[in-house]
């Protein structure tokens, strides 16, 4: 007696690739976006490690002034170091934009830089009538 269903069948294993590809694409998108943020990141500095203050409504940065360990001043809009005179004109033109106040300007200074450079930059800001400033710190 022979049963119809008794014939041996070859079962081809099928690996479902769709979920894996979905996940891989999500990962790619994540890393692409993260890489984009990294490109926009500031110049690498050893910022002072302080808690800082909780900023309830962070204004958009229109000008970031970086002070390197050797006192070099680099503004995010420029490609290299700039002099105090150049900084003055950059600050002046930034403050000329609509709705720009001290809250739109951030100082990033290396913790090992001498305060001389920071003092000079603050002098420039004060000359333009800024009553306060934001100094970036690294969250501990």
């Amino acid at each position, binding site marked *: 007696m022979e049963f119809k269903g008794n014939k041996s069948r070859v079962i081809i294993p099928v690996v479902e690739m769709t979920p894996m590809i979905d996940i891989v694409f999500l990962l790619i998108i994540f890393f692409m976006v993260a*890489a984009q943020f990294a490109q926009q990141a500031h110049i690498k500095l050893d910022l002072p490690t*302080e808690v800082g203050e909780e*900023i309830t409504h962070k204004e958009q940065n229109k000008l970031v002034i970086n002070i390197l360990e050797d006192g070099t001043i680099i503004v995010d809009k420029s490609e290299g170091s700039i002099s105090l005179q150049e900084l003055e004109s950059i600050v002046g033109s930034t403050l000329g934009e609509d709705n720009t106040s001290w809250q739109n300007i951030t100082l990033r200074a290396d913790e090992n830089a001498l305060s001389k450079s920071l003092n000079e930059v603050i002098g420039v800001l004060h000359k333009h009538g800024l009553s*306060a400033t934001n100094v970036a*710190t690294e969250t501990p």
Partner: protein
Amino acid sequence: MIDVTFLLLIYFIVTTVFTPAESLLSPALQLEEGAASQTQDFEPQIVTLEMQGIHTVYVLGGQVLTSRVEFATTIAKLPIAPGLIIRVKNEVPVGFALTAVQEARNAGFERVTYVPAVD
């Protein structure tokens, strides 16, 4: 396609640089020749940050404070209302200057004024 996708994934994993979170300290600004302090009703409380030899010190009303803890304890006893003026000499590292601003904030001073010291 999967090969290319994996290559892309590896590329972005390798090239991505994550930056640490930053926070902000916001001192008021004043130059030493500024007139703001002259209009205050209270006697201004001034701490001067300077180098003595190779050490950074906080000088507050004739007291020379060598440690951050000592400085924090001392300013915690000061009245909050007049605010605190931090005079920073040129030779002091920025990191040290910001310890004073942070401790003043921690002590509850709402008005912390950063003043570049004229030597």
